[in-house]
């Protein structure tokens, strides 16, 4: 899934870049073997449910290909899930590893990203995320650099305002924290001209605060 002259970083590399820019990410580990995955899962908390994913620069469409295993718990299941996603890898995926991350709960999934528009240059996007993000298409764009007030306006532009209030026993979205994510993306786009695009989806709202659960950064050659 790379265009001429660009390449996508692996999920793990993408998130390290995002974390460095100030986007909240999970404490996650990339390992080579199912046994290492078991150790990684233990380190996240005894008997805590984890997510196991195949991770690599060439890996795309993880959900569609069954390369994401959610709510995996216990050594045996972590080992089995890790083996399964490794077995499902194809030569096109290139070098791969297993990503083990804590399982977070949040019924609201947002999306945030960066594109470089041929006419207006770098733009930041925010919207309603998840696997249906493109079909829902409830998003707002602004040109980089964003000011805080621009990011606040963007949230107000979205149609699904009810999602930002209290939902299903979860607290309202911390708008300030979401604004911080957008400003971080704006700074990243400004400071890294080689970053062609950023896709943070889902940006899951955990206890009201957005966390990048998946991320994809495309960089220029």
């Amino acid at each position, binding site marked *: 899934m790379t265009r001429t002259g660009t390449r996508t970083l692996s999920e793990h590399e993408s998130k390290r870049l995002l974390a460095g820019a100030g986007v909240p990410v999970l404490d996650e580990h990339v390992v080579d073997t199912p046994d290492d995955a078991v150790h990684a899962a233990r380190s996240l908390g005894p008997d805590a449910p984890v997510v196991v994913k195949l991770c690599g620069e060439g890996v795309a469409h993880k959900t569609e290909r069954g390369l994401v295993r959610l709510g995996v718990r216990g050594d045996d299941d972590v080992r089995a899930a890790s083996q399964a996603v490794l077995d499902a890898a194809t030569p096109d995926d290139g070098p791969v590893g297993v990503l083990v991350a804590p399982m977070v709960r949040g019924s609201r999934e947002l*999306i945030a990203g960066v594109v470089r528009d041929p006419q*207006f*240059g770098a733009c930041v996007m925010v919207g309603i995320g998840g696997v249906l*993000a*493109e079909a829902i*298409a409830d998003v707002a764009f602004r*040109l980089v650099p964003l000011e805080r007030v621009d990011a606040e306006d963007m949230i107000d532009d979205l149609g699904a305002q009810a999602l930002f209030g209290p939902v299903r026993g979860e607290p309202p979205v911390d708008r300030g924290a979401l604004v911080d994510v957008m400003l971080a993306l704006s700074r990243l786009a400004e400071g890294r001209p080689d970053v062609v695009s950023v896709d943070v989806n889902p940006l899951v709202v955990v206890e009201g605060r957005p966390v990048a659960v998946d991320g994809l950064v*495309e960089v220029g050659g």
Partner: protein
Amino acid sequence: MTGPSAEQWRALFEPRGVVVAGASTHPGKFGFVALHNILRHDFPGAVFATNREGGDILGRRALATVDELPEGAVDLVFVCTPATANPELLKSCAAKGVRAAFVTSAGYGEAGDEGREAERALVELANELGMLLAGPNGQGVVSTPASLCAQIVAPYPPPGGIAIVSQSGNFVSSFQNYAVQTGVGVSRAVSAGNAAAVTVPDFLEYFSEDRETAVALAYVEGISDGRAFFERIRGVTRRKPLVLLKGGVTTGGQRAAASHTGALASDDRIFDGMCRQAGATRPATVEEAFEAAATFATQPLPRGPRVAVLTTAGGWGVVTADAVARAGLQLLRLPDDLRAAIDDKLPPRWSRNNPVDLAGAETRDTIPEVMELIASHDAVDALVYLGIGIQSNQARLMRTGPFYPDHGLERIVAYHERQDERFARAAADISDATRKPILTATELAVADPDNAGPRAVRATGRVCYASSNRAVTALAHLYRYARFRQRRGL
């Protein structure tokens, strides 16, 4: 890049004299029509025409060339000559002190490589001559403070605060037609044509500093440098509202997208975000564009989103309440003290909530009094008034029927029309006094524009909206601009 100088702008919009180059004796030709329109609308300065064969056009002797012009009498040349003649024409004009050219001639950037080269050369020449170059391939320029109607199309609008620039000459006419219809007038109007030298942002920056202009209204299709465009219109909206209608947003924009974000980044969404970030008002349609501009030009900005609806037409009140919510405004809950104050004016069958539906309970002075109560209340940011003209509509039926003026009809007809006129004036006066927008809407504005209600609204200089949803749409544009300014401390 610097735009035209103040002196050049004056030459275009406030010329002391005008020459139509390539004036024609044939009333179907642009060169005739342009001269006709300038004279028809009583341009007070000197008007000259040139025609290679000389002769008389519209009762005045055409000069064979601009070399015959008196020195310094003319600031603006309106060019209707073929493209090939124009370089020599501009040089001769410059020698006579002409500082601005509006070029209608085609055969430039729109006409292939050769045309593009001719256009580039013309721009370079104009720069050398210190001459503002508008167009080419444009329809003309209107400036009501100068009584200037230098265009090859109709109409000439009433004077007012809207300044228009368009990449499509046709929309200059359309917006001016709406100005004629609504009575909300125009300061300057210009068709940018190919915008070879003076561009849409150049015009917008001029409008933003022009004392005759309250609001800028622009139609654009292509934008060559999006970033620069954004920065420049952001400067415009710091000073004045800008209504920006964009054509062609649904074409193109297909991206090879590796990401959700990329797939969602359509031209339209990015343009929309750019407008919001710049504080530009983006209407969906041509009529919405004009009505937004006309509302900016004639109503104060609302301080907040809370809207009250005052109606004598029940159903209209209900759908207006729906429209308010859909437009991102708030239908305010009627405060207790306001409800009590209205109770004092009306028998109990009124709605006792917002919309304030008088339900036929009004007497002679009820509407102005209740309107003033509502508009004066701190909880109210804006008011939409519905039901004007209903009685005058009945009056028209009476006046045109066989029983008029007997049976007391003459008196009641006059009363109804006087009342609707009062209500229209009250809406304007109370809006001025409270500095809150009060928008009046009725379908009679188009169904029967001569009805005393809409006619009186127009006489106050404001729009009589053809439906309440159109009034609400315009009000929402004002609110968003007001909010944009408030949030940025402007």
